């Protein structure tokens, strides 16, 4: 167990050291989400009705979840790259804890997600977002988003190990994430969608997390959203962490 912790930290450190040295990855976490915020706030936002809440306040939790979800691509592509460059072979030939390569990667993702979230909150505040809830609720919302981001890292870790190339990791991820983020409560009220999409948006775990965050940050009624968001996150981890580790153990990339 001690080995698992130290090995995980070594791998997490590796992933964090290399981040600023791969500027294209850093852009995915910084400039890109800011562009999305500005796009929705100023281009689409004027046409979207969110009764009772200013659109910028509605938008920020949605954009953060979208950013975290798309940021997972970096995990998938990075791991797939490690497979192809033989680094996974090197790790697998070392006497290290088996889950550490993946656990280290997903732990590092918590830091990058926190960074992306900070950038988005600051951007949001500049263009008119503000928290309308007690400090502890704000913190709870941040932790919930990090938990959900951590869960999604495991999904992408699995995708990265299974995909045959970084490009296919990218497209598998995109095809899965695109409908989940857009057919949700991230940018518009699901009630405005046609019935099947409305239904999907309501059951979509992304909506649960976004609604829960809005409730926590804006002082809105939470309903079951918080518990459902936590349950979904834990269920995703419980399903994908063992799948990814099993895949890694067996033989990555074959």
């Amino acid at each position, binding site marked *: 167990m001690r080995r698992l912790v130290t090995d995980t930290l070594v791998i997490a450190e590796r992933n964090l050291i290399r981040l600023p040295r791969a500027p294209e990855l850093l852009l995915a976490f910084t400039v890109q989400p800011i562009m999305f915020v500005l796009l929705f706030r100023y281009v689409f936002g004027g046409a979207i009705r969110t009764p009772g809440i200013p659109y910028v306040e509605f938008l920020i939790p949605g954009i953060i979840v979208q950013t975290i979800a798309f940021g997972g691509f970096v995990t998938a592509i990075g791991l797939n790259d490690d497979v192809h460059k*033989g680094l996974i072979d090197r790790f697998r030939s070392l006497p290290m804890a088996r889950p550490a390569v993946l656990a280290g990667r997903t732990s590092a993702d918590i830091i990058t997600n926190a960074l992306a979230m900070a950038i988005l909150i600051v951007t949001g505040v500049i263009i008119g977002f503000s928290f309308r809830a007690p400090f502890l609720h704000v913190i709870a919302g941040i932790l919930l988003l990090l938990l959900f981001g951590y869960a999604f890292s495991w999904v992408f870790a699995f995708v990265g190990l299974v995909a045959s190339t970084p490009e296919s990791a990218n497209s598998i991820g995109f095809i899965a994430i695109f409908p989940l983020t857009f057919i949700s409560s991230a940018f518009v009220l699901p009630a405005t969608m046609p019935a099947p999409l409305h239904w999907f948006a309501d059951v979509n775990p992304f909506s649960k997390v976004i609604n829960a965050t809005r409730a926590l940050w804006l002082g809105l009624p939470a309903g079951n959203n918080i518990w459902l968001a936590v349950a979904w996150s834990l269920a995703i981890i419980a399903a994908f962490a063992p799948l990814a580790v099993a895949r890694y153990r067996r033989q990555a990339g074959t």
Partner: protein
Amino acid sequence: MRDDEAAITVRGVEKSFGDVRALAGVDLDVAPGIVLGLLGPNGAGKTTFVRILATLLRADAGSARVLGFDVVHEAGEVRKRIGLAGQYAAVDENLTGLENLVMVGRLYGSSRRAATARGRQLLAHFALEDAAKRVVKTYSGGMRRRLDLAAALVAEPPVLFLDEPTTGLDPRSRIGMWRVIEQLVAGGTTVLLTTQYLEEADRLADTIAVIDHGQLIAQGTSDELKDQIGGERLEVRLEDRAQCQTAMRALTPMSDEAPAIEGHVVTINVRQRGGTIVEAVRRLSDAGVDVEDLALRRPTLDDVFLTLTGHAAEESESAAEEEEAFA
């Protein structure tokens, strides 16, 4: 090691990828402290073999032990004792040379301080000191391979697997890599080296095992393999073609076979290397034959390979691609 058995023992190892039979029952023993060169064309099964020994891949049948530990059931023990370096140069491009080695050292369980000290030592040894703080992306191919080899040596493993360590390197880097490997071997490490280059096996390996289509087809020292297909060839170029018969008669006692004549050149297979040229010169001069040129040619490993497999060593690209797709 548990007792004084071989460093590597392989029995009946088989592995298939779909319809492709990568290994068709391989038996092999590697004595401690030697360099075994596993020589074969692309797609012969070399990489698959190394991956099984390095605990990365499971054989379909058969068993393999490294220093007495089973590569499947005691994989953890095996991993503590092996180093793996290969054609992919598995280092992180976005880390510096030193950061790569420190990471590997810590994953072997060393403290950061100990791993840093060991990393610096290795970088100095592999002439990478000046590049220690540079990101690996900026390294040349040869530098990457050296760093990859350094990473394999972090824990001073008694057994080292080198999978085509010089494939894709330019000739100068290749010779540099050979020197590094030679030094290593002098330190007593057991090395299993795969290569498709006959020259490399000839230069580095104590024992050569020839693999083709997933089977070992010959094993021995470079000299033993060359002897298998006949000894030395003496080639004598005469000044005057008319003296051919005289030269033949003069040289016949040196060989079990009749000499061959082609134009001005008389060729005979001789029994031994030592003293052959002196004896040939004396016999020819006694017989009054004027010699323009005279050379003793050994069969090369190329000749060996061609004789054993029926094809040259560096071919079968399509088979290689198949292996790559699966391995």
